[in-house]
C-alpha cells in the first residue's frame, strides 16, 4: 500500500497554495517583471508540480527506486535539452526562411 495520504486539512492548505501560485502565474503577465517574467512563472509552476508530486503522489515518502525512476526521466530530459542547446546556442540561426528548391511545393 502506498504511504498514507496527508490529512484533509493539509490537503486543503496545499490546494490553496497551488491556486495561489496559479493566480501568480496568471497575473505575472500583467506585472512589471521585465526579463524575470519567465523565471517567476517557471518557479511558480515548478512549486506546484513539486507539491503535487511530493505530497499527493507521495514522492516525498516513496521508495528509493520510485524516486530514481521519477528523477531519471527529468535528468535525461535535462541532458537532452542541455546538449541540444549546446548546439543551438553556438551556431548562427536566423529567421529568414530557407528557400525551397524549384519544384518543391511552397508552404501553405
Amino acid at each position, binding site marked *: 500500500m502506498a504511504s498514507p495520504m496527508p490529512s484533509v486539512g493539509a490537503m486543503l492548505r496545499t490546494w490553496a497554495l497551488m491556486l495561489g501560485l496559479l493566480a501568480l502565474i496568471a497575473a505575472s503577465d500583467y506585472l512589471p517583471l521585465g526579463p524575470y517574467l519567465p523565471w517567476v512563472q517557471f518557479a511558480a509552476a515548478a512549486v506546484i508540480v513539486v507539491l503535487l508530486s511530493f505530497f499527493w503522489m507521495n514522492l516525498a515518502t516513496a521508495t528509493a527506486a520510485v524516486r530514481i525512476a521519477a528523477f531519471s526521466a527529468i535528468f535525461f530530459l535535462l541532458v537532452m535539452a542541455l546538449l541540444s542547446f549546446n*548546439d543551438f546556442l553556438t551556431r548562427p540561426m536566423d529567421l529568414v526562411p530557407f528557400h525551397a528548391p524549384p519544384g518543391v511545393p511552397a508552404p501553405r
Partner: protein
Amino acid sequence: MNAVPRARHHDVPVPPEVLHPKSYLREGSTLWSWLTTRDHKRIALLYMISITFFFFIGGAAAGLIRLQLMSASGNLVNDRTYTELFTAHGIIMVWFFLIPSIPATLGNFLVPLMIGAKEVAFPRLNLTSWYIYTFGGLLVVATLLSGGVDTGWTFYTPLSTLFSNTRVILAAAAVFVVGFSTILTGLNFIVTVHRLRAPGMGWFRLPLFVWSQYTTSVIMVLATPVLAMTLLLMAFERLTRIGIFDPALGGDPLLFQHLFWFYSHPAVYIMVLPAMGVASEIIPCFARKRVFGYRAMAYAMLAIGAFGFLVWGHHMFVSGQSSYASEVFSLLSFIVAVPSAIKVFNWTATLYKGSIELAAPMIYALGFVVLFLIGGLTGLWLAAAALDVDLHDTYFVIAHFHYIMVGGTVMAYLGGLHFWWPKIVGRMYPERWARIAAWLIFIGFNLTFYPQFLLGLAGMPRRYHHYLAQFQLLNQLSSTGAGVLALGYLLPLVYLIWAMRRGQRAPDNPWHATGLEWHTSSPPPKENFESLPRVSGLPYDYQPTSIGPEPPHPAGPP
C-alpha cells in the same frame, strides 16, 4: 557429433524422460495455448519465431544489396529499388530484429530464471508487448508490399517530409508501434529485477546478464518515447506541411536529428549491452573462472547506459551542427569508450589462466569480443570530429557499425541461443555443426565487412547503387563474404530446429555452469522452480580445474 561437449568432472547421467514431466512446453500444445500464454518462457519463444522471420527478411534485403554491388555498374536493381532495399534492411534489422533480439527472447526467458522468480512482474503486459510487436511487424510488411520506403532507416527531414514519395508514414507507423512493445518489455524487466529477486539475491549477486538487461531496459524506457514522438511529428509535418523540422517553415532539420539520435544512439547500447551480458555468462563458464572484476563489470554497464545518452551528436559532425557542439560530443564520445574498454579488459582477464574450452558458445562469445573490439576502436576514429569529416557517409561507417551490431550483437545472440538451447528446449544442439557454423559466421563476417573499412578509407560513399571501377575487387570480396555469412546463419536455423526434436536429451546443467537457471530442470517447469531458490553466494563461482573441484552450488533448496 551429438555428444555433450566433454563433461569435466563428473558425468551427469542424462535423465531418462524425453522431456521433464513438468516442462513448460507441455502446458498445452494448441496454437491457442501459445497465443494466450502468460508464461515468460513461451512469450520468449513467440518472440524468437517473430524476430527470426524478420531477421531473414532483412537478411534477404542485405543479400540483394550485396548481389547488386558485385559489379561496379550495378545492373541488378535500379537506384530507387536499391534505396528501398537498404532502407528496408535498416528498418527491419534495427527495430524488428536487433532491438528485441536478446532482450525479448533470451531476456524474457532468462531474467526471471536467473533471479529466481516465478514470472516477470506483469505477465499480461509481456504478452501484450508481443502482440504490439506483431502489429508493428504487419505494418512493416505492409510497407514493403505496398512499395517500400526510400528515406533510409533514419527518416531524415526534409527528405522524409518533403521529397520522398514513398510509404514514409506507414513505415514510421510501424516503428512507432514497435517502440511501444520495446517500452513494455523494458518496464517489465525493470520492475521484475527490482521486486522479484529470490531471497538472498542481492544486487551484487545478480548475474551480469541480468545487469545488462536491467541497464538496457532503462535505456528502452527513457529513449524510445522520444523516438515515438519524433516520428509522430515527422509524420504530422509530412501530412500538414506545418511543423518544426522544415526550414521553409521556420523549423530546423537538425532538431529532428538531435531528437532522432537522442534515441538512436542509446539504441545502439540497447543492442550491444545485452550482447555484453551474454558474453559475460559464457566466457566465465568455458574458462572455468570467476568473472574478473564483477563490480567493475556491473558499473561499466551502468556507465555505458548513462554515457550512451550524452554522445548522440557524433552522428551529426557534418550536419551543420556548431563546431563547438561537435567538440563537446566528440569528447563525450571518447569517454564512453572507457567503460567499454573496461569490459573488454575484464573478459580478457577472465580468460587468463582459465581452463578454456572452445565449445560453440565460447567461439561465439570470443568472436563477439574480437568483433566488438574492432567495432569499438573504429568507433573512436569516427568519434574524432576532424577524422569523421573525412570518413562520414563512407563504407567505413557501415563497416564500423556492422562490427558492433552484427559482429557484436548477432554473434552474442547466437552464442546465447546455443548456450541456453539445452535449457530452452531440453535437448542438446549438434556440437560439431555448431562449431562449423560459428567459424563460418566469424570468417564470413570479417570477409564481408573488413573490406568495407578499406573501401571507406579509399573514399567509397555509402547508399549508392553503383560505384567506381577501382572499388570492384573489394566489393566482390565483401559480397563473397556475405554468401559465407548467409550460409553460416542458415546452418543454426536448420540444426537448432532439428535439435528441438532429435537432439540428445540435455541434462539440467550440461555446462556445469553456476547461475540459478541451471538449477532447475531442462526445460524448466511452468513455475520455473520446484521450490523457491535461496541464494547465498556470489555469481560465477567457477574454479579452474587445476585448482580443485568446484564448490557446491551457491543455490540450494531453502
